[in-house]
């Protein structure tokens, strides 16, 4: 098990800055998800750690600088997005590839390979070739191959993105259990926020080569620091407002249209300050115009769109000034398009965005 310290790593291609002074610590044995939209530099970050990319800054593993160590001497396992199995080698030979490069006896190689075949339930496929495997099976082989050499760190580049939804969810559980059993420090790259939240001990949200926020899944979900994080992790309704005064545990502020709303109090704020705050769709409370509303707000709107999602419903509502918000309701009261509705929230569910 190993601790990885990434310090001020920058990468540019030509005049395009792909990573912008990224710093990150991976604690020993932890599962870290790097989450960000396509093109934000996730793969580049993996390549830096593995030594495949030129960079400035430093990568340290267990206190030792790795910057001058070539990729083949780093002992870092990678599972690529396309798995990159050796097409001319059987499952068994793929897994044994790294072992054969080391001074290990035949018997020990055999034993290690069998152990990994068992761990990843690949026994029946041991003499198949990659072209004879399904996507999920290839992925298992890629993981087994990477784990075979007992790497210090395991890097996974969107390994589940090629699988269909059901298989993906099964593999998420398996991957997490596997990582815990092996206890290896793991960096998992994904653009799927649900996946990141479901799997990781720690989520790193990236945007355009910068790290937006680092925290546990519940931290980044419940307390996003920026509008980008709030939007990228789950959905959110962001409002602009001007602060008026504080009142007990709440802050009173005015929306652009003049409506007075109450939001959760946080940190140092001044009266007259322009702020952004957000409310998650599942925390918006919808009522009929005449019934009592939630304590935070009472905004009149009209239902414009209803999306049925099985266990819940998404209601899209137009507020004053054509602002659209989305509410997620579990048990539908039978909202129809065109209904007049009052949108509210509990003051402590409306949170200020720091940036």
């Amino acid at each position, binding site marked *: 098990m190993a601790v990885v310290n990434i310090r001020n790593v920058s990468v540019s291609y030509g005049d395009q800055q792909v990573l912008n002074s990224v710093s990150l610590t991976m604690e020993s044995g932890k599962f870290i998800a790097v989450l960000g939209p396509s093109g934000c530099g996730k793969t580049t970050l993996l390549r830096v750690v*593995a030594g*495949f990319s030129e960079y400035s800054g430093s990568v340290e593993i267990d206190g030792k600088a790795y910057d001058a160590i*070539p*990729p*083949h*001497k*780093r*002992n*870092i*396992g*990678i599972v*690529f*997005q*396309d798995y*990159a*199995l*050796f*097409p*001319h*080698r059987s499952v068994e030979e793929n897994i044994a*590839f*790294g072992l054969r*490069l*080391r001074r290990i006896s035949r018997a020990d190689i055999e034993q290690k390979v069998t152990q990994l075949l068992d761990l990843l339930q690949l026994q029946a496929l041991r003499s198949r*070739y*990659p*072209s004879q495997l399904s996507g999920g099976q290839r992925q298992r082989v*890629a993981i087994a*191959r*990477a784990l*075979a*050499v007992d790497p210090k760190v395991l890097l996974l580049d969107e390994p589940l993105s090629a699988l269909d939804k059901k298989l993906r969810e099964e593999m998420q559980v398996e991957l997490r259990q596997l990582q815990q059993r092996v206890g290896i420090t793991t960096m998992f790259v994904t653009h799927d926020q649900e996946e990141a939240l479901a799997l990781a001990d720690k989520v790193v949200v990236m945007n355009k080569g910068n790290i937006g926020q680092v925290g546990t899944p519940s931290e980044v979900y419940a307390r996003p620091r920026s509008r980008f994080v709030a939007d990228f992790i789950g959905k959110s309704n962001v409002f602009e407002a001007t602060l008026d005064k504080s009142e007990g545990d709440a802050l009173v502020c005015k929306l652009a249209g003049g409506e007075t709303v109450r939001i959760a109090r946080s940190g140092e704020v001044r009266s007259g300050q322009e702020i952004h705050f957000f409310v998650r769709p599942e925390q918006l409370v919808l009522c009929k115009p005449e019934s009592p509303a939630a304590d935070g707000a009472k905004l009149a709107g009209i239902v414009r769109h209803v999306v049925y999602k099985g266990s819940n419903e998404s209601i899209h509502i137009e507020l004053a000034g054509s602002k659209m918000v989305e509410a997620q309701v579990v048990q539908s009261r039978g909202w129809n398009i065109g209904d007049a509705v009052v949108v509210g929230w509990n003051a402590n569910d409306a949170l200020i965005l720091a940036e």
Partner: protein
Amino acid sequence: MGIGQRLGWPLLFLLPAAIVIGFFFFTMSIMVRISVAPNLGPAQIGDGFTSDNYIQFFGSTFYLGYLFRSLWLAAYCTLITAVLGYTLAYFIHRSGRRTRVLVGALLVIQFFTAYVIRTYAVMLVIGKTGILNRSLLGAGIIERPLALLFTETGVAIGMILVSLPFMVFPIVASLQSIPPNVEMAAASLGASNTRIFWTVIVPLTMPGIAAGIVVVYLFELTSYIVPGVLGGGYVDMIANLIYAKAMQSFDHPFAAAAAMVTLLVSGLTVYLLQKFFRLVTPRT
């Protein structure tokens, strides 16, 4: 009638191919026939059957020498072409887009320039006052010009240069088909660049190497213009012998027999090469 109508059109499209193949077998059968006909003097082909032409060919070290020289020359030239071709293909594959397009274009132009012109171009390079000798002399590497023209070395250089594109194109194609992350995966497992080259890249490009070697070997074995122009009569290969017999001595039966032998030897070589490459090409 229904089936006839349904199959009629596609069959019509096959007609040109059928004509070409039919014509090939027709002329081949004439050649087979002539190769066992008695030679009754210049340009006179007898009616009977005889094995004299073949006996004459196999019974003479002079004639067999042409065959063996050609086999040997083609063999080592193919090997050198393969090494050079692989190096060039690897360079093309590795270099940036601009270099790749440029080198590729040069090869394609080379490829589509008339064979004879290319051969004369090689002559200008390796001649006594050619570019090669002038630069070597200029650099002080040699004191007297190298005699390359009208020697086996000259012919070999010519054959290699002229057949290089046949080797490079299929190898580049197979290099391009290697999944891009495979090399990185090998490195992450501890393989050095040399190791990756021999355990991953070479095996995965074996189909390209095989295609290149078979085509180039046949091409070089049956070379006619290159030894004709660059050998100047001193380094004749089997095709030159056949041509001289057919068009200068007008001994058509003997020429036909020599051609048949060459054809069979080529066929056998291709068969053996295919077998060999099937053995060394990893399954996928």
